């Protein structure tokens, strides 16, 4: 029976693999590889040589627990490793050591999405295709590079709580920011340290039963994720709308063509024959360890965003920006703190408390960071930043107390971003002090003489012509004048309207 398309809702769950930033592999002491020559980070254990045995990486367990706890999960009292059995050249033992029915952590939540489970496993090796075309078909041989094999992975599986492709991409971004904040992974989708697969199905809106789901793999950017899920929702919606049935299959989304191709159908799906890994014993994290790990969890993006919204009254978008980009948020908060703690004068434009020390509208600093600093920082890495929170705070204060104009402040900011330094010194060195009335009077007069036609237009009833005069004054003062003050002087000199 065909379902009208408008009454179908999409149901999406995500499966995420995170490569951990440990020093060594999951089960052996080989260092992790970052683009080394092939097969230079291997040993008999990660090559699966006869007689070798795995030994669990302590730090990987800590990171796994940290992720689980940060996502609000309950850690298992006793979790087991299992063998997931299948044959492929990138799987040296012919099985992957993973976790099956008793994972490290389960039943958490991040934002609006419930997290079903968090577990540990090892990464497969890399198969590179030796054929000239680089494709699988037509190549004669492939070469296996085992450098990546054995890298520790955490797998995170959500409940199917997402209801749109946009929401899925957004949640994936939140997860990435959270994992980044924890410092457990590079979480770089390009490099493969963060991999997101989506399970997609559709059902009649409001129904409780799930439709058949398909799996979308290997989308290596948030944008591809969104578009791939959108494409699959559209495909399933149309199919069901026409009375067809969704087949359980694994699909690949090609962002260039926008097409979905089947990688594997249900008939070909594997029976992994999971059984407990006899070479490894149970993980039973002690309360002490859990407490230690929990104490290491910093304020996470979701929490920070909420705090900035509630306590700093920042708008949604700004709060999110500062929450997702940790160092930017730190810069903002430290500058804000700096400013609010400055003793003495409540400068105009800044809210002040009774003692002048607890005030400062955070939105002023926030806007400076978001609108002016962010574009100037561009793609640079936080460790490269030269502007300090103290300098930023001082700059905002200079503007607020009228020492420099907005225009001059932006020039100071350029210098701070390029070379660091102190705003007051930069103002002096570059002569950016606000042009005072004395200085301006003469400049305004001269500008009015030079822009006589503009003066005429103003007198003729076109007030916008003042812009040309203001512009001339600004150029003359190299932006040090306050635009409003210039206009006031011009009008004063013009005298009352005729």
């Amino acid at each position, binding site marked *: 029976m065909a379902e009208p398309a408008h009454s179908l809702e999409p149901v999406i769950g995500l499966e995420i693999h995170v490569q951990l930033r440990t020093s060594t592999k999951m089960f052996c002491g080989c260092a992790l590889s970052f683009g080394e020559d092939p097969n230079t980070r291997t040993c008999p254990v990660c090559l699966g040589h006869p007689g070798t045995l795995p030994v669990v990486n302590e730090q990987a367990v800590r990171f796994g627990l940290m992720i689980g706890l940060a996502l609000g999960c309950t850690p298992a009292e006793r979790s087991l490793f299992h063998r997931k059995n299948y044959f492929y050249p990138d799987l040296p033992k012919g099985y992957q050591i993973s976790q099956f029915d008793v994972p490290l952590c389960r039943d958490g939540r991040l934002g609006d999405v419930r997290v079903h489970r968090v577990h540990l496993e090892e990464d497969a090796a890399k198969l590179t295709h*030796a054929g000239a075309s680089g494709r699988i078909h037509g190549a004669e041989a492939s070469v296996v590079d085992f450098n990546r094999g054995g890298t520790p992975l955490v797998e995170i599986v959500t409940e199917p709580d997402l209801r749109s492709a946009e929401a899925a991409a957004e949640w994936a971004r939140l997860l990435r920011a959270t994992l980044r904040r924890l410092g457990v992974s590079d979480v770089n989708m390009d490099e493969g340290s963060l991999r997101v697969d989506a399970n997609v199905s559709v059902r009649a809106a409001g129904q409780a039963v799930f439709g058949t789901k398909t799996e979308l793999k290997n989308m290596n950017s948030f944008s591809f994720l969104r578009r791939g899920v959108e494409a699959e929702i559209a495909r399933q919606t149309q199919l069901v709308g026409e009375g067809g049935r969704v087949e359980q299959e694994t699909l690949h989304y090609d962002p260039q063509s926008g097409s979905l191709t089947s990688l594997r159908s249900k008939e070909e799906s594997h029976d992994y024959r999971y059984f407990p890994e006899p070479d490894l014993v149970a993980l039973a994290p002690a309360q002490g360890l859990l407490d230690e790990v929990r104490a290491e969890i910093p304020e996470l993006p979701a929490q920070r965003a909420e705090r900035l919204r509630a306590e700093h009254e920042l708008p949604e978008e700004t709060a999110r920006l500062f929450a997702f980009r940790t160092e930017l948020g730190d810069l903002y908060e430290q500058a804000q703190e700096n400013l609010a703690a400055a003793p003495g004068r409540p400068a105009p434009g800044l809210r002040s408390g009774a003692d002048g020390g607890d005030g400062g509208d955070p939105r002023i600093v926030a806007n400076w960071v978001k609108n002016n600093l962010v574009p100037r920082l561009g793609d640079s890495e936080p460790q490269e930043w030269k502007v300090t929170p103290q300098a930023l705070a001082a700059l905002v204060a200079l503007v607020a107390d009228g020492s420099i104009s907005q225009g001059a402040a932006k020039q100071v900011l350029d210098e701070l971003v390029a070379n660091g330094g102190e705003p007051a010194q930069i103002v002096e060195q570059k002569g950016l002090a606000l042009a005072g009335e004395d200085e301006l009077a003469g400049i305004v007069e001269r500008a009015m003489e030079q822009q006589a036609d503009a003066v005429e237009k103003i007198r003729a009833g076109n007030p916008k012509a003042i812009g040309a005069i203001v512009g001339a004054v600004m150029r003359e003062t190299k932006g040090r004048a306050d635009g409003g003050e210039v206009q006031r002087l011009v009008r004063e000199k013009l005298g009352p309207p005729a």
Partner: protein
Amino acid sequence: MTAELGDILEHIEAIQALDLDGVEPTSHVAPLENVLRPDEPRESWERERMLEGAPDASHEGFRVPSPGR
């Protein structure tokens, strides 16, 4: 092969008739938990050494017929 397997299975499958509800399965006999290794790197093995004895090795890695052929 099939006949022998069938014969073996006949004997072994008798186990299915046992009522063992409520009995915990044993997956490990040694009374051990939390056996972990410090996250300290040591030298990996030389590539040449690890490629020795491989049935088909290029100078860089292990060659296999490509999947999908």
